[in-house]
């Protein structure tokens, strides 16, 4: 084969891309479009001003990374609720099993992906931080 042909073919692609819309995103000024099914930061669903979570312990049980800590307690109406609900984002592998296991649709995964922080302890998301605002 003529040694020049592959070079010309390569340059064609290069030239074509010079006139195409760039794939590079000018993050953070430009934001990516996140799919609905994206598994980002967790959130605790709220119903009647209360977290829906009933502290059944299924999410910490199913969690392969063992990153969820739940402690149950009894409220004034003798209902079970999670007095502690913590997720250690440094350990979380975003598999979404917790969402799948939840029998009361209390935990979901949001489109939030910017989880960087300065301190290790800031990666431990407490119940207050996880509640849907």
């Amino acid at each position, binding site marked *: 084969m003529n040694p020049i042909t592959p070079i010309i073919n390569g340059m064609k692609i290069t030239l074509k891309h010079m006139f195409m819309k760039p794939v590079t995103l000018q993050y953070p000024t430009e934001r990516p479009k996140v799919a609905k099914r994206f598994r980002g930061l967790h959130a605790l669903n709220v119903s009647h001003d209360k977290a829906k979570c*009933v*502290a*059944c*312990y*299924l999410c*910490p*049980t199913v969690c392969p990374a063992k990153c969820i800590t739940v402690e*149950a*307690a*009894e409220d004034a109406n*003798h*209902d*079970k609720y999670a007095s502690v609900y913590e997720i250690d984002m440094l350990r979380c592998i975003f598999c979404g099993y917790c969402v799948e296991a939840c*029998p*009361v649709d209390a935990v979901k995964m949001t489109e939030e992906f910017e989880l960087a922080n300065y301190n290790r302890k800031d990666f431990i998301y407490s119940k207050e931080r996880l509640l849907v605002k």
Partner: protein
Amino acid sequence: MVNLTIDDKQVTAPKSATIYEAAKMNGIKIPILCHDKKLKPFGACRMCLVEVEQMKGRQIPACTTPATEGMIIRTSTPDIVKARKMVLELLLLNHPLDCPVCDKSGDCDLQNLTYEYQVNSNRFTDEKFNHEIDYNNPLIERDMNRCVLCGKCARICDEIVSYGALTFIDRGIETKIGCEFDDGLNCEFCGSCIAVCPVGSLLARPFKHKARFWAMTKHPTVCGYCGTGCNLTLGVKDNKVLTTIYDEDQGFHKGQLCVRGRFGYQFINSTERLTTPLIKKNGRLIEATWDEALELVAARLSGGAAVAALATPRLTNEELTLFKKLLVENVGTNNFDHAAGYAHTAITEGFARSFGAKASSASILDIQKSDMLLVIKTDAYETHPVVGFEINMGVKNKGIKLTILSDKRGKLSKLPDATTLVHRPGSEVAILNAIAKTLIDDNLVAGSAATIAGYAELEKALAAFTADVVAAQCGISAADIKKLASEYAAAEKALIVFPVGQAYSGHTAELATALANLAILTGKYDKEGCGVLCLSEKNNSQGAIDMGFFAQDGGLNGVEILDACAKGTVKSLFIAGENPLTSYPNHTKVKAALEAVEFLVVSELFLTETAAMADVVLPVCSFAEKDGTFTSTDRRVQYFKSAIRKNVQIKSDYEIFSNLVTRLGGTVAPTPALLFTEIAANTPGYQGLSHVSLRKEGAFAAVATTPKFVIPQADAPFTVEVGKLALVTGSALYHNGTLSQYGEGPMHVCPENYIELSRTDASLYKISEGDVVTVSSASGSLQLKAKVTPRMPAGVVFSPYHFTAAPINTIWNGSPVTSVTVSK
């Protein structure tokens, strides 16, 4: 044995077995909801339906049908599976599907079966129950909406616990489990109903929402309260003991527990536990390092006979042996005693001289094998509830004759056909002597009795104890004494049971001797279902005796040690786990002694009032944090392993004693297991035992008896001063020693000391239930809450000893009966 075929498998089973039991024995699983192996067959749930070929393919319940010769059984044909699915559908029709919030989830029979039979939908529709949930009870939560009406709770409460708190109420579709008049639950709180409930209808409230069943590790261990030696399983998560778990295969008692065993575990993880050694400086206890504390203790221990020690029999056999070695070999003193070893003279002196062995000649297993039980004091149920369950089952299921000789009536008196002879307090020995005299006079003694040493002397010494004379003094009739003697002699097998303990000061060597004489006279010992069973108080009281940790060879006993402290002859006192300020007689004297002693070191779990007086306090491990062996009241040696890791700041008693031995120049076995091999070699009956051999199951240490008649000295009959009442002391059902004060369960049910008095006295002194009354004796006075009960005879009052807040020893100085005045 019968031969039958189950699922094409040829099997054999005992004649008494049901189809369910026959299948289980041969490894074939039949699903069940309403059956427990301790209970009688009931057949309520219809889950265990099987087909028997001979019955023309009809479906019959396996749990109520006896297995017969040649039966051909199928346990899982498509028809049966269909029927079982239907049963589950019908149960799930009313059962709320609240598994996420139900604590039973994970351990729930209904949930497991639903999963196994894949009942995913329901063909029927109906409303769910709407019963009110009982959240008020501190220990047992009842949610009858979840109930499947298997009746296990009602049956265990009736058949084994014999309380009958729960029962079926209403009829038809309105049937539910409830208490009398559908009221709140007010029972003994043993929690047996919680243990057997197959769903989440009955739950332990102290454990509510603490953890899921599958998240806990289960640690089998031995209960650390009374001497029965029950086995229990601790549920542990994150190094915390969260609950006790029922295991129907555990121990002689098949997982049955009392309120203390089941609900009294919270002391293990209490935040009040001591975590660092304390040294008294300028009158205040200051935190110190272990080195400082042990250096100071070691320096003060080298004083020979001026050093004394008191140890609780809650320590392990290994720790007690090591403590004794430290005291005898390294310190050079014989002044040591275990928790009121003086209270166990029934064994150390009584049995020693009558049977030639410092142990009971019978075991708890003999109770159900006997024909007649003679129980001294109804408190035998209260001191050892699980032994009480054995008595209940024996009397109710096997028709064992029960006679109780007591100064008050009690739970055991309520058993069917039980005879209770209520005598004046303090006259037990005289009555027993009169029975012995009757046996001899009426020629009811065994043929071999006359050849046993001491027979002639006994016969002579008993001359004064004719039934008529004794009856006049003791408040029971001569006819009753004679009847009891003839019944005891006539029974083929008869067992005598009596409790001892720190508050049973009348239960001495004399009582043990008098009881032993009856057994020896009639030849009822050393045989199955016969003998004398002394119920020792704490979990390792018998172990402490076996290890020789009690006053002997001229050493001072518990009470004498305190006297010597007051006199100044004992200068250093080492108290390992004891709380004499509450549990020893005569508060003033004990306090004076502890103040007088120059150096007091206390090793304890908590800063008790005794520990607060110490110069050095050493924090130690509870039974859940160490390894060792306990010996139960009938000499069952049981090994237990630590369930949780100990706090790094605390040490076990074993580590403390071995450290002190080393500091004083001795050598010591590095681990309890190695020390136990030495113990096994040197202790009669323990030969061949080791930690490894005991790992699976405890073993009985043999007791060799050589009978001899000894003359028991009966005290002069106690007469109450005019206008006063006779106070008898003892144990409350919900407590054991002073440790149970740190268990939430016992403290929920019985939080404070009380005085029980009869209705007659209550109306005489115009006292009603719950009134705070002042009880005064010659030695002091105390404010106690009044409890008016029908069980007390007129003129007698009862109070337990466990409570630090109102210690009964302020008015009780160790005598079996005390004259007191009670006023509002």
